[in-house]
């Protein structure tokens, strides 16, 4: 068991003929993901390293039975790529693209309401169920299959750091996913936490947040009311100056809202095991999830 993706997930890559799309489609395939097709308008009928390319998502779905897609297209076209995947009724869309205009994502978010498709991202590393399916740009080898830890994060390389430390401590992962660093995204912390709570293989969750918005505070309240599995929390950006966008479009403290201190306080209040020092996260997870101090 895992959440959202497993060995049966059949993946399309939208933007497979671009440099990034081609590289990461190959990396996913090498990891063992069923990459069943690619989509680039105008390049239908070609093959990309053995993977058939189609002109549209709908056509690709009909011909390959795909139920998920990874979007690696440039920002001006990414919102439309998401909508195309939603209209083709895919179960899951993972949007890697960074730099999509917020207004585009506002329209996509509202336009997707009531539809069956789950969106992960945009501006995210993707999702991986170690040993079974990787849809994203994360390095596969740092992960350890079999659980018991689920990881959900707003960041990319910071997630890799956390996963690496889990692996070093001998803690495997059920599923790891980044929900993205943009202000408007698809799947949120609570969606992931609820899925981890319902997944019998997941025994505990690491939640990696950062400054900006109030998603972590809202999630912390939800955890107290709905989860009985232990959660370890980390927040990046304790030293970030207010009013400055820290790389991610969503990582900004404005009007006194979205500070790391407020997020840590909300986590503590709701019984989440807070780790303040990134160098300690592996050790804290071992202690919380296994009860072993050495």
């Amino acid at each position, binding site marked *: 068991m895992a959440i959202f993706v497993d060995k049966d997930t059949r993946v399309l890559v939208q933007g497979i003929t671009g440099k990034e799309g081609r590289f990461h489609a190959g990396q996913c395939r090498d990891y063992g993901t069923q990459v069943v097709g690619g989509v680039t308008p105008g390049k239908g009928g070609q093959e990309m390293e053995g993977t058939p390319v189609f002109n549209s998502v709908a056509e690709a779905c009909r011909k390959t039975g795909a139920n998920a897609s990874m979007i690696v297209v440039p920002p001006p076209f990414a919102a439309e790529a998401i909508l195309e995947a939603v209209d083709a009724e895919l179960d899951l869309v993972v949007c890697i693209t960074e730099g999509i*205009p917020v207004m585009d994502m506002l329209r996509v978010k*509202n336009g997707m309401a009531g539809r069956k498709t789950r969106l992960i991202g945009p501006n995210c590393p993707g999702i991986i169920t170690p040993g079974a399916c990787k849809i994203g740009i994360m390095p596969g080898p740092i992960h350890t299959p079999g659980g018991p830890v689920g990881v959900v994060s707003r960041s990319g390389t910071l997630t890799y750091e956390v996963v690496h430390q889990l692996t070093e401590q001998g803690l495997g992962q059920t599923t790891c996913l980044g929900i993205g660093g943009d202000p408007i995204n698809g799947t949120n912390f609570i969606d992931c936490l609820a899925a981890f709570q319902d997944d019998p293989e997941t025994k505990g969750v690491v939640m990696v947040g950062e400054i900006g918005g109030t998603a972590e505070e809202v999630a912390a309240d939800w955890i107290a009311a709905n989860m009985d599995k232990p959660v370890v929390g980390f927040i*990046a*950006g*304790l*030293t970030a100056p207010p*009013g400055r966008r*820290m790389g*991610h479009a969503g990582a900004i403290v404005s009007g006194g809202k979205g500070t790391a201190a407020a997020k840590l306080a909300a986590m503590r209040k709701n019984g989440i095991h807070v780790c303040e020092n990134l160098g300690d996260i592996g050790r804290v997870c071992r202690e919380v999830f296994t009860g072993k101090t050495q």
Partner: protein
Amino acid sequence: MKIHEYQAKELFNKAGIATPAAKVCKRKEEISNIVATMQMPLAVKAQVHAGGRGKGGGVVLATTTEEAETAANKILGMQLITKQTGKQGTRVNTILFEQGVKLAQELYLSMLIDREHGDIVIIGSRDGGMDIETVAEETPERIITVHVNPLLGLQGYQVRELIYGLQLQGDLAGSFAALIKKLFALFMEYDCSLVEINPLAVTEDNEIIPLDAKMDIDSNSLFRHPDILAMHDSSEEDELETAAASYGLNYIRLDGTIGSMVNGAGLAMATMDLIKQAGVEPANFLDVGGGASAEMVENGFRIIVSDPNVQAIFINIFGGILRCDTLAEGVVAAARKVGLSLPVVVRMEGTNVEKGREILAQSGLNLTSATDLRHAADLLAAI
């Protein structure tokens, strides 16, 4: 991206929203000629991105031409210090002369993206001219909030909700309705993340006129707004930040002494925190991008060493797909190329990490490898 008040008002005017008669001035020689063409009273306003201009002495209401000229000569070229600029302040390169209006009442109006609701929120208040966050905290009942679905657009009942909330009657209600519809269209057309009018003036002649205008435009959308891009004022930015941006690096200058270079924004923030937790202060945020190529590392070095406060550099690269030996070679080559003399702590993770550390150790440069983040923190504390 922030634009200046006068630029925002130009966009307002284009959208059919009237603002007081105004003239922009960038040169002291032009001051008296401009003042001579305008009627008193006259507002002289520093055009800087930072808020709190009035309290910092960047806004003066002049009642005579002499006063206006004196104020303009003082403000243009001054180093304006406000609560948002820091101690060094920001240089005023442009001023705006604006016709004074006869104020009957000051309102507050803003629109912004609400990330939690996934919509656009419009905020109005009868307490214009004040700090809206204080109003919201102390008298939340005096704040009117309307959420607009971006697909449906601004609805009539939402406009009425604002009108009733602001207690506008007769002609004023009609003028406000016209203004807010134009403003919302402008917000959507220009991919705004914030439009704030504080105060929105009700004049003795029963007109509604924006006296101030703050506008932030989503940087991700600039590819479709060349007219906004042309408004970019690089003098408002730190020189190093502008230089870093030209290399495609994401750099923010801070006050500390430990420079850092990291791949990925989240990890870069966490690395700054780690530096602070080691008992030293971060000199910058620098995200060289997920891939971290040799060229990026070299440019990163150039930016970091340009900050005279930096005493040591911490490189934290989580390679993953990137090979550490390739990265180490890049670091060594870049350090040689820029003639780096500062001590550097390198923490990298990824394939071939041992070989990477060997390359650093044999380089003959002041490069120390950290085995993990805790070790890195100890090394930084020791510097």
